[in-house]
């Protein structure tokens, strides 16, 4: 009896390890997208001490998360709707923001990812929290990121504001 129990436990441990290993080696698209968005938020953040060259380099790096023909439509408080299209325009805007603002801290506290059945497109429903250096109020917005898998990478092709309150 004890022998069977030990064998059963060993089998369970092997299966658990196998499952864990499989998830580490071949993570689910939801996990990959979530990780990617968190990395993007870290890259979008910068502090006062960021060097001018680093500003340029990080803005370029930020562009690698987006598809060539990306569209961004944001409702910014006090500024109305802002629309950017194309990766180059986005990089320029990001660089300009890095030059103008003293610091920026971007966080995505909630990310809900839905992958389409074809596994080629996905949507991420995200709560964006941004704290701009020198401003007391934080900026909170609900956004929808549409992503598509291109050459093995999940790239953002659209970002839009979602009105929590209509």
């Amino acid at each position, binding site marked *: 009896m004890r022998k069977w129990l030990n064998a059963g436990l060993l089998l369970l441990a092997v299966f658990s390890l196998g499952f864990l290993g499989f998830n580490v080696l071949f993570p689910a698209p939801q996990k990959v997208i979530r990780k990617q968005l968190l990395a993007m938020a870290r890259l979008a953040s910068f502090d006062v001490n960021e060097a001018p060259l680093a500003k340029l380099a990080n803005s370029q790096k930020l562009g690698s998360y987006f598809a060539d023909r990306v569209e961004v439509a944001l409702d910014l408080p006090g500024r109305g709707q802002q629309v950017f299209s194309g990766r180059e325009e986005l990089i320029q805007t990001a660089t300009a923001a890095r030059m103008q603002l003293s610091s920026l801290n971007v966080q995505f506290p909630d990310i*809900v990812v839905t992958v389409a059945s074809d596994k080629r497109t996905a949507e991420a429903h995200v709560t964006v929290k941004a704290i701009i250096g020198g401003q007391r109020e934080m900026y909170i917005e609900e956004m929808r990121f549409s992503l598509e898998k291109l050459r093995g990478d999940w790239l953002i092709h659209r970002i839009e504001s979602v*009105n929590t*309150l209509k």
Partner: protein
Amino acid sequence: MTAVVQENNSAPWWQVILVGRNPRWTFLRIVILIIGVMLMRQFVVLPIRVDGISMLPTYKSNAVNFVNRLAYVYGKPQRGDVVAIRMAGEHIMLMKRVVGLPGETVEFRRGELFIDGEATDEPYVKLRSRWNMPPVKVGPDEFYVVGDNRSMAWADHKQGRASKSKIVGRAIL
């Protein structure tokens, strides 16, 4: 009998402090406590920290509060309730006061709230400015919510119609 008592007390004092007289029972109590807290958080009461100025002076920034998730299981939000509204998830939520109920028309004239064309008293509003908003019809499953701090600029203040499915619960304190 005396011998048993002596045996129970034989554990060193530091062990009694760290894991109790019976470590198995202590472990079980901890597990039950953790599961209980998780269930409470998930289904009954959600602790929150208020951040921002939109609910001044009722709620100051950094104040701690709790959201009763069961408040609207059988009932609907009432005018004057302070509710938590979900965004993409529940790590960050909006905290607002319900001022308009389903089917009503909400309007602001020179900072005063009008419901279905009639001025409505709001004793909780201490900070005012001259907000103007044309009449807005609240949908059948919606509630019009707004913060108590009406001295903020209109553009900076999040307010509007929230669907019932987005309302997580009512603020307790």
